[in-house]
């Protein structure tokens, strides 16, 4: 069954704040095998002009993934999670994401389109401080395999 087109333009607020922890930044950096001191050493980050450890460029996915699962779990959207693969991902920063930041996410269903037998669900997400300062905007394309409406 096809994804519900009525959801284009809908916004989901993920209001439970996520606190970016120093140890989570270090754990994530270690998991990707990266010993860059600005991910691990607060003194090094501060010497480079930052107030705390920097989160790696793809770290925000840890936060947006949780918010996205919430939006995608809406039964009326009609997305079969067993059929999906990650198609595309993009991060556009307004400012660095730091350990200590406490953030919320809103997720906008930007587009639902068809390529062949697949459907593409494009979501735009905004990671913001509790005061509303935008930190990073992400674009995520999820491919739903073989669920496109049949012609005729």
């Amino acid at each position, binding site marked *: 069954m096809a994804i519900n087109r009525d959801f284009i333009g809908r916004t989901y607020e993920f209001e439970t704040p996520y606190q970016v922890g120093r140890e*989570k930044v270090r*754990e*994530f950096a*270690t*998991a*990707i*095998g*990266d010993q*860059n*001191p*600005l*991910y691990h*050493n607060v*003194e*090094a980050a*501060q*010497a*480079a002009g*930052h107030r705390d450890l*920097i989160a*790696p*460029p*793809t770290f925000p*996915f*840890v936060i947006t*993934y*949780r918010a996205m699962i919430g939006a995608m779990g809406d039964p009326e959207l009609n997305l079969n999670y067993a059929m999906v*693969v*990650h*198609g*595309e*991902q*993009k*991060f*556009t*920063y307004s400012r*660095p994401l730091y350990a200590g930041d406490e953030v919320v996410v809103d997720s906008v269903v930007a587009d639902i389109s068809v390529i062949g037998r697949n459907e593409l669900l494009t979501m735009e997400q905004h990671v913001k401080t509790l005061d509303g300062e935008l930190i990073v905007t992400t*674009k995520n*394309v999820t491919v739903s395999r073989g669920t496109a409406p049949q012609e005729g």
Partner: protein
Amino acid sequence: MAAAVSVPSFDSVNVGDKIGPATFPIQRINLVMYCGASGDFNVIHWNERIATAVGLPNVIAHGMFTMAQAARVLTDFVGDPSRVIDYGVRFTKPVPVPDDDIGTAVEVTGTISEKRDDGTIVVDLNATANGVDVLGKARGIVRLGD
């Protein structure tokens, strides 16, 4: 006293310059660690029985793990990762990771495709595993030093 980070200057690079190649080995342990760090415990990243049952050649790396590896070509080059202000990829092919002592590897090369008036450069990334392109339209925008 921590040393300051050395950031390449905008004037020191030219369109067409290569960054890398860099090779990033991937073994099963890396996927298990990434599951825990990212919170993405999808079974296709750690359970060979289920991965092969749904038609995959083997357990596959998280797309986001491969994306993170490719980003290291940018962050290692610029030193300060916060200078990577924009980064996007398409996931074109899965990266199977066999359960042996070798695993697999992703090889990444960057090419500077544009220098912009605002002091940023555009870097196009090519990422392959076993000679197959695994990312498409992989591109970062990096703010260099004065």
